[in-house]
């Protein structure tokens, strides 16, 4: 018997003939009918969900990040080993638990014993890891989920919660990521999934749902921080024959991947939140709008929607209520501006994703002119807990104005890259230096970039900033979706500002002039500065353009596009000035400001690869005086007169013997 199947003839639940107690029957009980035999069947089915027919569970982190680190080869190796040895194991591809820096992650657990997690696993390490664990030895593991004293080496391996990366994390939205099989509705269910939905349908009116979410002070996690309860309230009050609910999974901020991680690791949680949102506002149709560049996320959502439909959690008379809802997964064709809500609705309607002025707001006139609520993936992922455990449980952490937790993605020049979920109000310093382990390779901290192309760069004086919506805005940046890109001394701020303007210029939808033409002018100025052609007055011109674009653009993307320039002009003006007045790039990044290239003779192995790489034949091999411990006495030499400073030779050199001169 599968967990989702009816246990006996007394169970009549199906998608066509729903039973209000279906989900409780499958999990915690009480059953809709008294039967000890059925209780045993169900308990056995629950165990089988975790361990299959054996007593061993092996999981491999196979989110996009895991796959990029080589998880498929590890999965294949585990699969082969299970076949070869006939191991009684259930092999499960799971999502990412957030510690991307340690990928590929493999977790192994025998029923009744602590689970051991291994980091940086490759295919060769699989057999010894599995063998050692099966012999009761966990030494060398990355972390344990619990300690019982049953296994050798437990003392020397930390608990997962003891790792610095996890200390201070409070997990809600991503609690199941890396733990459960995202393709299995059964695994979500036995981890408490869809309990909130049952409670909502059995006990709460839509208004009571909205009141609970409002009391939890949940705010939109997509960036603007609009109160979710109020958003639902406005949409509920709008009269209409049809209403729509949209899950914004068009995660477009570069440096942010919490939505991908959430949806790839635990799509049902988001879907449960979406169904509850639809119930609250009275929507009969839902859309999950997924970014084209994140295909695995779309697959996971499609599978989750299909499973929910199969078991009657979507469709007509959900769990025997009067409520019906269908959900479609819509694949974005790729445009940053789809993240703007009116742009996204245009895309779903089949048009170019051009924003329109608001008001009217989507809550009253949205998709096909009908009231529409749009919530971000992470916002919806918080909803089940609020309804299952109450608003008070949610507001236990966070700040008075911003309750609950927020997922941040740590990337760039930081030791531990990945995603962390911490209470709102946690300081940047705590996140970066305690959880994130500080700056990579002992370099000096320079700034963090938050909020993607609409955000800003904050230097070290903001490290003790408690992160929430208001504090970030007051500092000149924004929360955005929560991407934190760490910059060290080797990052050029002017180049980074130019990078963001390249982004926003290319992504401008072209509808309004300030954004379409203004950003192009800003980009031209920044490009000139990074190419050593900057002039006095450029910075003032940048400032003026920025202010005009902020004031006059139609949508939030245009209005915030100058932020990367404005914050860096405030905090890193000297770096701009060095480019303009001294024609110097202090971070040694802007290639046009390179003075030239030279060969470090002691390192050169005279392989000759740089000779044909040079487009102007400026390199020759010459005799040189012997050096101590020498293997050859020839070296490449670059003729500075002929050299066009293209840098091909430095890129191609196998021993990094060609250096730039700044």
């Amino acid at each position: 018997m599968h967990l989702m199947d009816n246990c006996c003839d007394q169970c009549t639940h199906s998608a066509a003939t729903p039973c209000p107690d279906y989900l409780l029957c499958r999990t915690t009980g009480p059953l809709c009918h008294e039967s000890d035999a059925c209780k045993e069947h169900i308990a056995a089915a629950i165990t089988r969900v975790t361990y299959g027919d054996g007593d061993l569970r092996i999981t491999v982190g196979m989110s996009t990040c895991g796959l990029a680190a080589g998880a498929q080869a590890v999965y294949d190796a585990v699969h082969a080993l299970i076949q070869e040895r006939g191991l009684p194991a259930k092999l499960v591809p799971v999502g990412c638990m957030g510690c991307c820096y340690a990928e590929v992650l493999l977790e192994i657990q025998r029923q009744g014993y602590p689970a051991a997690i291994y980091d940086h696993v490759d295919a060769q390490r699989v057999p010894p890891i599995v063998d050692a664990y099966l012999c009761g030895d966990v030494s060398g593991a990355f972390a344990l989920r619990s300690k019982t004293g049953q296994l050798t080496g437990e003392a020397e391996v930390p608990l997962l919660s003891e790792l610095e990366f996890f200390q201070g994390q409070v997990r809600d939205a991503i609690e199941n990521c890396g733990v459960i099989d995202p393709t299995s509705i059964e695994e979500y269910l036995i981890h408490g999934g869809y309990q909130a939905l049952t409670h909502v349908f059995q006990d709460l009116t839509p208004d009571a749902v909205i009141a609970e979410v409002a009391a939890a002070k949940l705010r939109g996690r997509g960036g603007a921080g609009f109160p979710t309860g109020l958003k639902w309230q406005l949409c509920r009050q709008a009269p209409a024959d049809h209403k729509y609910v949209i899950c914004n999974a068009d995660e477009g901020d570069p440096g942010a991947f919490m939505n991908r991680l959430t949806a790839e690791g635990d799509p049902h949680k988001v879907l449960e939140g979406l169904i509850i949102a639809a119930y609250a506002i009275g929507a009969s149709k839902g859309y999950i709008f997924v970014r084209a560049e994140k295909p695995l996320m779309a697959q996971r959502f499609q599978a989750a929607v299909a499973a929910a439909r199969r078991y009657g959690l979507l469709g007509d008379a959900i769990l025997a209520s009067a409520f019906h809802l269908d959900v479609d997964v819509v694949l974005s064709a790729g445009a940053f501006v789809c993240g703007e809500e009116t742009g996204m609705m245009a895309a779903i309607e089949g048009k170019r994703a051009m924003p329109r002025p608001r008001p009217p707001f989507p809550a009253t006139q949205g998709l096909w002119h009908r009231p529409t609520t749009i919530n971000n993936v992470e916002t919806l992922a918080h909803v089940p807990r609020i309804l299952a455990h109450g608003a008070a449980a949610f507001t236990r952490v966070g700040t008075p104005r911003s309750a609950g937790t927020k997922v941040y993605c740590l990337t760039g020049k930081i030791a531990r890259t990945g995603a962390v979920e911490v209470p709102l109000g946690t300081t940047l310093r705590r996140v970066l230096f305690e959880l994130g382990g500080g700056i990579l390779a002992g370099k000096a901290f320079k700034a963090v970039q938050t909020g993607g192309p609409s955000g800003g760069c904050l230097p070290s004086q903001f490290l003790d900033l408690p992160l929430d919506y208001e504090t970030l805005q007051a500092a000149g940046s924004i929360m955005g979706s929560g991407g934190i890109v760490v910059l060290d001394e080797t990052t050029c701020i002017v180049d980074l500002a130019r990078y963001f303007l390249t982004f926003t210029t290319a992504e401008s939808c072209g509808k309004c002039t300030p954004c379409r033409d203004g950003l192009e002018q800003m980009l031209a100025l920044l490009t000139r500065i990074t190419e050593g052609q900057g002039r006095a007055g450029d910075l003032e011109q940048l400032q003026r353009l920025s202010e005009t674009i902020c004031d006059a653009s139609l949508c939030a993307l245009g209005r915030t596009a100058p932020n990367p320039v404005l914050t860096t002009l405030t905090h890193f003006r000297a770096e701009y000035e060095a480019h303009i007045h001294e024609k110097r790039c202090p971070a040694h990044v802007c290639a046009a400001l390179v003075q030239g290239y030279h060969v470090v003779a002691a390192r050169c192995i005279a392989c000759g690869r740089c000779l044909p790489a040079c487009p102007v034949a400026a390199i020759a091999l010459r005799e040189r005086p012997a050096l101590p411990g020498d293997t050859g006495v020839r070296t490449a030499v670059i003729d500075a007169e002929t050299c066009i400073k293209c840098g091909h030779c430095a890129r191609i050199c196998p021993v990094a013997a060609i250096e730039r001169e700044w």
Partner: protein
Amino acid sequence: MVNEAATSISIVDDAFARVKDQTPLDSALIPLLQAVQNALGYLPAPALQRIARLLHLSESQVLGVATFYHQFQLRPTGQHVITLCQGTACHVANANEIHQFLVQHLQIPPDDDTSPDGVFTIQRVRCLGACSLAPILKIDDDIYGHVTLPKLPRILAHYTQHDRTKRAPTPSANTEAHPHAPHG
């Protein structure tokens, strides 16, 4: 070319059969374009004309949408598509150098994105969302993290030398990745 036009029209017709009940009908435009793009790697003109006719849209409306979104290509791509991430984390991890290297290594002509032998097309995308393993690139559906210039020729060779059935072996991400990352 005649064949390709016929193929593209039958792809449109097949896809249209699946969405023809969608209301309003013009919301099927992007799914139809995606069906053709996924099948052929680009949008041939006959397919666009067919879509316009089926959805009662003008050809300019269809072309307007096709040129607005990054996913759609109006020219055929090479046999393998290299998708190069240019997100912020990849940018600060020198993704530009990877692009320059690929352009040079594959002899991509200026103002083009496909190698002269038609094997590789380079596409730059905003962010693949695997920022923690930057710099990232994808070749077809295989994703590679912590890409460095010395690893690239070996990865590329895998797609030219073999009748490939699986991705190139992971360039030992485990030993080379983040040598300085302390364990949590």
